[in-house]
């Protein structure tokens, strides 16, 4: 089973003047497990508090900085970066999703935030983390690449205001940066619009290698045009999990009530949903998930003007 780029994920919830851990997804032996239990962070404290304070997405690569909590645990977990994603409801920041990405000598992958610049009408790379020697040139060149609206993966995500999966960035002509030596290592790419209200804050790109995909299952769910109460799969990338792919092809999830399955729940709550026991979570695909060895599930909704437009589901 490959090491996924996603090492762990946490959802922090704002309660009054503090932010606390609501749910965390960790491997059994992950040193981060349990370290955030009971932590009550104020604005600017720790990773979640920092994201809460600035209310914009960011990428943290230095876990030893004063603002980062649990530096020892992060180092022990072999983390390379954390992506901090604020989530909003009715214009207020209500929670912060933290994605921990695997570092170390064997890891190959990237997280990039593509943002606008004053005086420019294109996306340029803001904060970024690239790991793996093979991506050195890719990282160097990326600093000089810009995307107008509709161009490249970031430009398309910006234009559509919807997430997009690229099953193999090294193969598709739609991902031009992967040309050249560095990009050959890359495989699954995910572009995620990070939106506050109706305005785009940044486009997050997660890029992973064949040896370590972002997760083991990557999906995007959206309402069925013929039945808007049902979510159907728009895109899916499953690696070797063909049975799971087959089982997911014809599925749909209701968004009525509390919502069905991971996508339905994220749709109903309008915030990220993290489940660390797919086996017992009462989800429609639990048996196939169990057979595939999947235990963790993360659903990230794309919310525009308090209306969910799309849900990204990552399982590993």
């Amino acid at each position, binding site marked *: 089973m490959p090491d996924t780029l996603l090492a762990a994920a946490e959802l922090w919830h704002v309660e009054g003047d503090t932010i606390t851990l609501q749910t965390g997804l960790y491997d059994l032996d992950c040193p981060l497990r349990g370290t955030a239990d009971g932590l009550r962070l104020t604005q600017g404290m720790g990773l979640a508090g920092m994201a809460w304070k600035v209310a914009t997405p960011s990428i943290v690569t230095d876990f030893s900085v004063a603002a980062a909590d649990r530096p020892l645990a992060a180092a022990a977990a072999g983390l390379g970066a954390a992506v901090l994603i604020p989530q909003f409801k009715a214009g207020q920041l209500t929670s912060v999703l933290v994605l921990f990405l695997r570092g170390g000598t064997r890891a190959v992958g990237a997280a990039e*935030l593509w*943002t606008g*610049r004053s005086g420019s009408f294109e996306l340029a790379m803001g904060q970024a983390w690239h790991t793996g020697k093979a991506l050195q040139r890719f990282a*160097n060149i990326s600093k000089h690449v*810009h995307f107008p609206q509709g*161009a490249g993966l970031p430009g398309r995500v910006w234009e559509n205001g919807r997430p997009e999966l690229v099953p193999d960035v090294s193969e598709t*002509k739609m991902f031009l940066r992967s040309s050249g030596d560095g990009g050959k290592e890359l495989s699954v790419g995910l572009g995620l619009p990070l939106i506050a209200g*109706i305005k*785009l804050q940044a486009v997050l790109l997660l890029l992973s290698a064949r040896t370590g995909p972002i997760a083991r299952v990557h999906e995007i769910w959206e309402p069925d045009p013929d039945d808007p109460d049902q979510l159907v799969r*728009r895109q899916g990338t499953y690696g070797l999990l063909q049975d799971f792919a087959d089982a997911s092809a014809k599925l749909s999830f209701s968004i009525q009530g509390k919502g069905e399955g991971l996508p339905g729940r994220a749709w109903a709550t309008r915030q990220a949903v993290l489940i660390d026991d797919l086996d017992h979570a009462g989800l429609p695909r639990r048996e196939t998930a169990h057979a595939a060895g999947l235990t963790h599930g993360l659903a990230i909704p794309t919310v525009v003007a308090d209306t969910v437009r799309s849900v990204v589901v990552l399982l590993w």
Partner: protein
Amino acid sequence: MSNDNRYVEIVNLVKAYPNPLGDAIKVVDGYNLIIRKGEVISVIGHSGCGKSTVLMMLAGLNPLTSGDVVVDGRVTDGPGPDRAVVFQAPCLLPWLTAYDNVMLGVKRCYPHASKSDRDAIVKYYMNSVGLTHALNKYPREMSGGMQQRVGIARAIALKPKVLLLDEPFGRLDSLTRMDLQDTILDILNREKITTMLVTHDVDEAVYMADRICMMTNGPEARVGQILEIPFERPRDRAEVMGSNLYYDLRASLIGFLEKNEKERPDEVAPTTDPNAPTPEATYEAQWDEESTERGAGLEVMAVAF
């Protein structure tokens, strides 16, 4: 925000040709590009991808199927002296001398100037391209490189807002090509003319441009991505080519061309379900300037696009 940042705006440009066997064929589809005042932008891509089509639409010499071209705040409608074109072939009138070929445009653009003023303008630009000695030569008496210099002088003498260069060095030998590249760069450094250069030559694109627009393969070609060339101006060829970054940028462009060469649209597996719902109309694709200005570590974003 200063309007200068949007000196040339190419918005959702589409060029479609009728197809007797079915739907019109869109050669270019959804091409978006903003060019800043005084910027030199190279357009690079495979043969037939639509580079020259975009340039000709910008020149007003090829009608748009849809979309807009705005130059200095005005929507263009057909060709005009504010946009001068230099083609691969010099296209000089063979019965006129070099001087008279340049004077032809100067007369049209400066109808109220005195004869001596016009004469000064022609001689100034002929001198700019190093042809003071060849004013009275006919095209048949000049080499290809000299003819192209006349073509460049003719274009620049119009004092255009936008200079459009369609593979202007394509027929020249390497030495003449480099010489002429430097001549044009000297003029552009001095005159600050906003320029679009269509080229196949990777080295030329990197050396001459502030940014390189990499076009996807056609049909339905559009901007694939834009590469910023961070070398300071005025540029020194040896210095630029001695830089490690030059080779990284060059390798990236070559990789892009190789990748596009290998792939054809029908070989690319669709990544999106054909029945996917269309995006809702509520999304405005704007930057959240307010919140990002507060943000630590992120650069301040632009005002709403």
